[in-house]
């Protein structure tokens, strides 16, 4: 066996099919006798449905049926659920409205689902959709996050549109820190709403076999097992054992494909009802309207600081917009994925965080790359920057002074951080970014009439989601362990089954590297199977940078079981005691002898036990034949990736245009399995975070119309918006999993918005909100000049 596969930049197993157009995404699938579906969606942000007239549409050419909420209710199909119960500070449970898969009474955002038209061709379905007459009584919409609590009630019985009023931390102790502080730094922040925009629009195909009563749903999901569970148990559509969910190749997710959507439920139900396949493919504008969005926080925060620069307290008061309904992970995102992380990398002894989650007449907001952690990082890093500037302390020094220095470290809120070395990555980043010569570069920019700024951002994430007992005690409706199965085939190659799902993360490659390393089987003889509930064990899917730390560990543990059984078999075949057998590089050996068996020979023996001519492979007495092991791994703690990012921007004051000139990051993800793939994950995260800071914004007008509902209006970052990224690492292995890995998928999107915004504010010397578009920056500069003139 050659050198270890771990840490090696192996090219991806996945690439060839995607590069040759042979990927198989849901929209690429065509089933025999397939019909086509189009959703009728609400054009109003808030309205009462007085009636739906489907008669004309039903008579249109090629139409098979038109289904509404009425039929859905007749078939007793349940609504969508919020999967994480949050308890308000007064001890009451969160309040969530009913969320039917097809609205029958009221609609609560533009794009809300009203009816489904099914026809022989897509064109016929589209034409007939125009004939469905929905009689709406339009109601006044609540579109503003800030005003939601003082607006009229959207959902009956949910006062002030408040889902919950949650708190975390010791308020009295924090108040005391503030009353003893030398300085209190305050800040108001907006974390702009984003549309995840995976390049593959969502799609669902339902297929029902009326003789076997098997229902299959092909869907663009990051989490097919959970979709099957939820649709089966809560929507009560079909028994789990006769329901198969297949998420084939999925073109990106970023959180927006974790949870089952109304479309999944309705399309699968329609297929069952009509007894023929029904296919629905989302168009991009539909996707803007109906995919769950991300972020959308308004925050007031303050920092208590001593004159020597020691931070002694933090207060955070956030309003989080949930949109029209509470989506599956919507309630945990602005609470347990946000509140515990507001402390950043800093040793802050007292903190208090209050989050009020509100309903508005906008698309539901749920997890989007980073989910809560970008919002927390944006808050603390903008505030730390502001504090350093107001106190006249170097921003880098101020951060270093307050870093956690000792590990493990129990934070004052929730987390016990097992490992890290924050000075190490910060110092490395300062060097790589050449902070020492920043002023020289600033002067050079100034000589060209440009404004240069530098911004720092340090971050911590809680990844490896998640220890089940811990999260369930906090309201999670499911455990967050992961499963794996290693199936040795008789000829010695391996099928690996995982409950995670790869939609860009390169699991086929990374997980094969782990198995190759653990079992000494060539990389090319190991294939990963995922994305089909009929294959492999139940699992919890991919999100929260969990797949490697939790799913990878389950794989490693299943490998250990294989080795354990292999040793027992080898001991019989090699006529040695089992505790004498050693396993190394794919061979079971008896040390100091020439006796050995390869793992392939052992696998063969497990499947052909006995003596047949030359084959002599007796199994130990009572041992079951076969070589297949399953492991379920429940992590003991979260993992805590951390890092330091430094951004330099150049602003053209005549146009307000901001150019990201350099971007440097040094991250500590613990051990790396495939650095090439890790780099790719960082790049992608950075692009989404820089996109949030400078370009992207989902904007609803006061009537609840989404103004930015296409790529013409919503600025997706392009190749020429970015510099070449400078990337380096430090490594303190995670102690919470045997691989020592921490997770890397979300880091870029978490760290980069404050790095960019701190740089922009440093450059222009005045505050501006995200996205810092040319127009906003230009206006901010004008305002600054005119108020300076007035003051003079």
């Amino acid at each position, binding site marked *: 066996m050659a050198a270890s596969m771990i840490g090696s930049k192996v*090219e*991806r197993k*996945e*690439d*060839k*099919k*995607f*590069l*040759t*157009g*042979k*990927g*198989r*995404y849901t*929209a*690429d699938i*065509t089933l025999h006798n397939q019909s086509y579906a189009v959703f009728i969606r609400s054009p109003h942000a808030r309205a009462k449905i007085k009636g739906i007239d489907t008669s004309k549409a039903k008579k249109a050419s090629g139409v098979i049926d038109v289904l509404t909420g009425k039929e859905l209710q007749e078939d007793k199909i349940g609504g969508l659920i919020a999967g994480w119960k949050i308890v308000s500070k007064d001890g009451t449970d969160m309040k969530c409205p009913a969320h039917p898969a097809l609205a029958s009474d009221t609609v609560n955002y533009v794009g809300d689902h009203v009816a489904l038209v099914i026809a022989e061709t897509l*064109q016929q379905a589209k034409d007939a959709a125009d004939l469905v007459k929905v009689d709406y009584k339009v109601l006044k919409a609540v579109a503003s996050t800030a005003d939601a609590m003082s607006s009229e009630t959207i959902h009956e019985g949910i006062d002030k549109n408040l889902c919950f009023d949650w708190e975390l931390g010791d308020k009295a102790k924090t108040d005391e820190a503030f009353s003893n502080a030398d300085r209190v730094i305050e800040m108001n922040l907006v974390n702009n709403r984003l549309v995840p*925009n*995976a*390049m*593959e*629009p969502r799609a669902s195909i339902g297929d029902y076999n009326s003789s076997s009563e098997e229902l299959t749903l092909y869907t663009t999901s990051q989490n097919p097992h959970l979709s099957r569970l939820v649709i089966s148990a809560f929507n009560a559509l079909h028994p789990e054992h006769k329901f198969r969910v297949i998420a084939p*190749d*999925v*073109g*990106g997710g*970023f959180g927006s494909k974790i949870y089952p959507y109304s479309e999944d439920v309705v399309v699968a139900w329609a297929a069952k009802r009509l007894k023929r396949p029904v296919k629905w493919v989302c*168009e*991009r*504008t539909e996707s803007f309207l109906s995919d769950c969005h991300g972020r959308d926080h308004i925050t007031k925060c303050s920092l208590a600081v001593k004159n020597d620069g020691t931070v002694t307290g933090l207060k955070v008061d956030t309003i989080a917009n949930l949109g029209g309904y509470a989506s599956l992970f919507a309630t945990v995102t602005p609470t347990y994925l946000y509140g515990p992380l507001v402390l950043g990398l800093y040793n802050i002894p007292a903190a208090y965080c209050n989050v009020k989650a509100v309903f508005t007449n906008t698309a539901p907001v749920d997890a989007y790359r980073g989910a809560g952690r970008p919002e927390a990082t944006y808050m603390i890093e903008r505030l730390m920057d502001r504090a350093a500037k107001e106190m006249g302390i170097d921003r880098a020094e101020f951060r270093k002074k307050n870093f956690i220095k000792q590990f493990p470290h129990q934070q004052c809120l929730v987390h016990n951080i097992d490992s890290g070395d924050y000075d190490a990555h910060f110092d490395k980043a300062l060097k790589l970014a050449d902070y020492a010569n920043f002023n020289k570069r600033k002067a050079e920019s100034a000589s060209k009439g440009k404004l240069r700024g530098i911004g720092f951002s340090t971050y911590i994430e809680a990844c490896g989601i998640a220890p089940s007992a811990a999260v369930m005690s906090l309201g999670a409706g499911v455990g967050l362990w992961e499963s794996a199965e290693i199936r040795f085939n008789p000829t010695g190659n391996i099928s690996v089954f995982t409950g995670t799902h790869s*939609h*860009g*993360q*390169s699991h086929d490659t990374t997980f094969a590297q782990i198995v190759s390393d653990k079992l000494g089987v060539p990389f090319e003889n190991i294939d990963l199977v995922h994305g089909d509930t009929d294959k492999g064990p139940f699992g919890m899917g991919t999100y929260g940078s969990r797949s490697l730390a939790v799913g990878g560990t389950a794989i490693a543990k299943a490998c250990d079981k294989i080795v354990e059984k292999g040793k027992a078999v080898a001991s019989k075949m090699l006529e040695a005691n089992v505790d004498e057998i050693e396993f190394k590089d794919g061979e079971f050996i008896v040390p100091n002898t020439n006796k050995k068996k390869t793992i392939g020979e052992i696998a063969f023996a497990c499947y052909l036990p006995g003596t047949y001519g030359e084959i002599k492979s007796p199994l130990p007495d009572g041992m079951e034949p076969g070589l297949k092991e399953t492991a379920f791994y429940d992590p003991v703690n979260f993992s805590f990736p951390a890092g330091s990012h430094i951004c330099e921007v150049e602003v053209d004051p005549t146009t307000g245009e901001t150019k990201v000139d350099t971007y440097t990051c040094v991250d500590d993800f613990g051990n790396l399995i495939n650095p*090439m*793939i890790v*780099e*790719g994950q*960082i*790049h*992608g*995260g*950075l*692009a*989404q975070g820089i996109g949030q800071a400078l370009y992207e914004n989902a904007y609803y007008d006061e009537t609840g119309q989404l103004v930015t509902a*296409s*790529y*013409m209006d919503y600025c*997706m970052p*392009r*190749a*020429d918006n*970015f510099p*070449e*990224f400078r990337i380096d690492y430090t490594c303190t292995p995670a102690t919470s999993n045997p691989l020592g890995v921490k997770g890397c998928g979300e880091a*870029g999107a978490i760290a980069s918005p404050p790095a960019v915004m701190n740089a922009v504010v440093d450059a222009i010397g005045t505050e501006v909100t995200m996205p810092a578009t040319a127009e906003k920056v230009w206006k901010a500069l004008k305002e600054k000049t005119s108020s300076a003139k007035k003051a003079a």
Partner: protein
Amino acid sequence: MVKVNLSVNGKQIEKEVPDNTLLASFLRDNLNLTGTHIGCDTSQCGACVVHVDGKSIKSCTMLAADAEGSEVTTIEGLEKDGKLHPVQESFKKHHGLQCGYCTPGMVMSSIDLLKTYKNPTDEEIRKGLEGNICRCTGYHNIVAAVKGAIGKV
């Protein structure tokens, strides 16, 4: 209905399709060439880029009927004798793709870019790929992949 005669990946095709059939839909739905992807409805994303008579074009901006008599190459037509095209090879080598959805369009655009600029600068590559949106890679490794294929197209 309109009759369309064209060559796709070197194969002569004759089909009768509705007049308003876009080239993108024609390739996907009539020829089952699902490597050409559809990522938007405003001709912004570039996932559907193919070559028509050697030039890259967003196949959602063209009617199938307008391709009458043309030679169309899609992502499925690049591999020759089981060997990847140098640009495909370079995308693999430089990890220029993750979820793979934008990849076919990105590869087709990159090939045209490398024909237009024999030795492009980073800036020319980044500007040249403005019509293709990728959400996974941050474009960093796509630029590296295009650079890696300079002189090989």
